[in-house]
């Protein structure tokens, strides 16, 4: 791929009149600027409502979010002594503290390091040291991990926030009481060498200095770093994708361009996916906040019944989710009988949306589901399937405005339409690299092009279809086997709940296919290796057949429900001593 190359954009014809060919420039200088303008423009509107499973809830308006995030920014700068560009790790489930803290970090001119609350102490230590985080905001439910984590990191202060934080007093007390007495999820805070402050107290200490918050972020521009968004990738330890304010604002503009004015101020979006994940961060937090809409935050969406009161009590117009969430909802009687009346559409991402799920969703709710494709490294949206009859089932749609997508072969040369190639992307939403990892960055980012590692096929009109992860290919006697194809064949068995395919070493063929199978608990009767092979023989040529089949009770999954082949590969490496 050469510098001067201008690749064709065959998808522009499908944009029609509703989607601009070129991305309009952002109205904002930084995310802090965006938050500040939204809070002023929609001051009296409700911004966030957090709903726990029994229906208890708390709400913050745009004005409150503005004032509280100002106070938190002032706390970080005045009380913690942070400077612009310093990293603040945030380890919170969905709830009212999340936007207050995340927006406060941006207003302080600092960098947000989103961290999964379920992380183990060793994962936390790695991420805090790698990012050089100075302050940690953590949910009080996991405060017990601090005893091990804090001494091994450079953290200088810890802030604790609760799930029912900022609820009205009585519900807050009751939810906290239930956490202490019944679910026992509120451990005592260990003695630490660094100061530990509750979020409310931190805000109180920041508030006297909040008048000059604007000066903290006046100098912040599109080039400045906004997020270190950690991603495992397929190998090695987690690394931080450096996403600038400009990256985030560009992707926000791209989301808004393709949604073609479908989102409105009176919208109410159900946020059951975790905000620390880039999908919900951009799709829910930024997109809907910017237009003055309301986010319904769900701290714990599993089991899916936890969503019942939220869906009943609020006029939900959008739901973002992954395949497993939509599937789970439709298996609930209360949802199937009374799907949300005001729903406009569902937005699916994270992992492929099964066609059967999409079809059933449309039949049950009467609304479409839009599927997008993206990566942490691209903030995240790269392509989308339009929300109207232009949509093509089984496709991840067409690239968003302002970015180039090309499919290339192993030599980096573009492949003809209809031929599988690695998807590479260039555009304003592409990260500037991995934090302090020049080698990893050089491998992934070449001359402005991000190599996604996903193998895709593009048709004449620019519609893309993902074939598989390049790194997951199984090379059997020189033939490429795409795990997705084998997994799809396996999933067609009534008796199979889930399947994952990874390579194992083989003396004769170099590599061979191994399938991990989870039996469908509702299937009555036995499931044997012979049954599986007999089924596969009807669907796959010989070299694609699983050579080894392993039955499991469950498969490793990411926080948003993706099956993690890399964990299974690690098992294989250990098993064969590789």
């Amino acid at each position, binding site marked *: 791929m050469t510098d001067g190359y201008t690749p064709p954009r065959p998808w522009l014809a499908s944009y029609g009149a509703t989607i601009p060919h070129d991305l309009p420039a952002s109205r904002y200088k930084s995310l802090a600027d965006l938050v500040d303008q939204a809070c002023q423009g929609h001051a009296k509107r409700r911004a966030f409502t957090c709903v726990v499973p029994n229906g208890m809830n708390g709400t913050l308006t745009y004005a409150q979010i503005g004032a509280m995030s100002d106070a938190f920014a002032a706390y970080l700068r005045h009380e913690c002594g942070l400077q612009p560009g310093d990293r603040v790790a945030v380890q919170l489930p969905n709830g009212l503290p999340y936007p207050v803290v995340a927006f406060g970090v941006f207003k302080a001119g600092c960098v947000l390091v989103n961290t999964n609350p379920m992380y183990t102490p060793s994962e936390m230590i790695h991420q805090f040291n790698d990012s050089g985080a100075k302050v940690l905001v953590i949910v009080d439910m996991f405060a017990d991990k601090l005893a091990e984590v804090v001494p091994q990191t450079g953290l200088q202060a810890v802030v604790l926030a609760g799930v029912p934080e900022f609820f009205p007093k009585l*519900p807050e007390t*009751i939810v906290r009481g239930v956490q202490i007495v019944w679910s026992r999820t509120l451990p005592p805070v260990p003695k630490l060498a660094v100061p530990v402050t509750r979020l409310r107290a931190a805000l109180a200490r920041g508030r006297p200095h909040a008048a000059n918050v604007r000066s903290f972020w006046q100098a912040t521009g599109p080039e400045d770093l906004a997020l270190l968004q950690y991603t495992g990738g397929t190998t090695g330890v987690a690394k931080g994708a450096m996403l600038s304010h400009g990256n985030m604002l560009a992707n926000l503009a791209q989301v808004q361009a393709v949604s073609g004015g479908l989102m409105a101020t009176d919208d109410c979006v159900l946020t059951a996916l975790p905000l620390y994940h880039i999908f919900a961060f951009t799709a829910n937090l930024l997109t809907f906040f910017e237009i003055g809409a309301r986010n319904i935050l769900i701290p714990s969406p599993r089991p899916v019944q936890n969503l019942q009161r939220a869906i009943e009590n609020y006029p939900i117009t959008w739901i973002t989710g992954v395949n497993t969430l939509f599937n789970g909802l439709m298996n609930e009687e209360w949802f199937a009988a009374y799907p949300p009346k005001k729903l406009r559409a569902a937005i699916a991402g994270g992992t492929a949306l*099964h066609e059967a799920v999409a079809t*059933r969703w449309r039949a049950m709710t009467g609304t479409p589901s839009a599927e997008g494709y993206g990566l942490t490294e691209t903030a995240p949206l790269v392509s989308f399937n339009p929300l109207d009859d232009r949509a093509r089932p089984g496709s991840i749609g067409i690239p968003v405005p302002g970015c180039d997508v090309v499919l290339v072969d192993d030599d980096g040369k573009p492949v003809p339409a209809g031929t599988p190639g690695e998807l590479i992307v260039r555009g304003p939403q592409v990260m500037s690299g991995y934090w302090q990892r020049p080698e990893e960055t050089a491998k992934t980012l070449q001359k402005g092009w991000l190599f996604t590692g996903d193998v895709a096929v593009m048709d004449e009109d620019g519609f893309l279809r993902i074939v598989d992860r390049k790194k997951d290919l199984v090379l059997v006697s020189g033939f490429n086997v795409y795990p997705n194809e084998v997994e799809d064949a396996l999933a067609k068995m009534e008796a199979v709940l889930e399947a994952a395919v990874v390579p194992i070493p083989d003396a004769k063929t170099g590599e061979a296919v191994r399938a991990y199978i989870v039996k*469908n608990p509702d299937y009555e009767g036995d499931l044997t290796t012979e049954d599986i092979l007999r089924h596969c023989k009807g669907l796959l040529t010989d070299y694609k057949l699983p050579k080894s089949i392993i039955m499991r009770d469950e498969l490793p999954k990411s926080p948003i429900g993706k099956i993690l082949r890399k964990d299974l590969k690690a098992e294989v490496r250990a098993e064969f001593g590789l």
Partner: protein
Amino acid sequence: MLTELETKLLGVMMMVIMLGMGSSMTYRDFLIAFRRPKGILVGLLSQYMVMPFLGYALALIMGLPPAMAAGLILIACMPGGTTSNVFTYFSKGVLALSIMMTTVSTLVAVVTVPLLLSFYGGLAGLSGDYVIPAGNVAQVLVVLLVPTVIGMGLRKLNANIGATIELVGSMLGVAVILFLIGSWVPRNYQMLLDTGFPVYVATIGIGLTGMLLGYWLARGLGQDSNRARTISLETGIQNGPLAVLIITLTFSGTMQQEVLFIPILYSLFIVITSSLITIWYRRNATAEALARDAAKVRR
């Protein structure tokens, strides 16, 4: 024998409990429940066919004296208690079904309880002194429907208030039983010691057997395991405080004390047995909910 004040206090607490019951449900919950009315019908069947017969049979087999037999049969004929909702909640059962069963069984109690009482009372050969007038039962039940409706309105008005009252009502359900035990046991200490083994078997057995038969009746009639667990708890857990309230409004003196004996003892033991059963049910329900989340689309 309860004092005047205690009887009044019991009445007020029952009102609050029913307020809590009302605020635990929405109009939509009703609609969902009646989309599959079979669950409720199965529940009613086990509530009003299985339980009263069990009460009568146990009274007969254990050879209970008339006062105790009257108490046991009354408990057996009672509608579901609101405490069953809190146990269902904690056992992750089908809360809507539990609430509906409690509500519907309380509604039809106006008719069924007087009928069942006179039928099994007659069968057991209880004399006129131990007959509970139908009017009393109906009157108490009608009065209790008022706070239920108010509770539903509050829930609609504000989810935080609704959920709070729901929790308070459920907790009070347990508190009332503790109150009854606390005020009654010390005064009847000697009687507890003098009471024979058969009475204890009947008192503990009615709840446990009810849960067991309720579960298998529901399974036999095609209910899934989660609904069957809900029906099971609902069947075994009777509205003990309501029985006590009816007895205090009907009898007085020594007679009241004698008839009260089994309902209060039942209320004591049912809290213990249901707690144990709930822990067990909760484990099963959690495993099933997670499996359901992962379930793939049916083709």
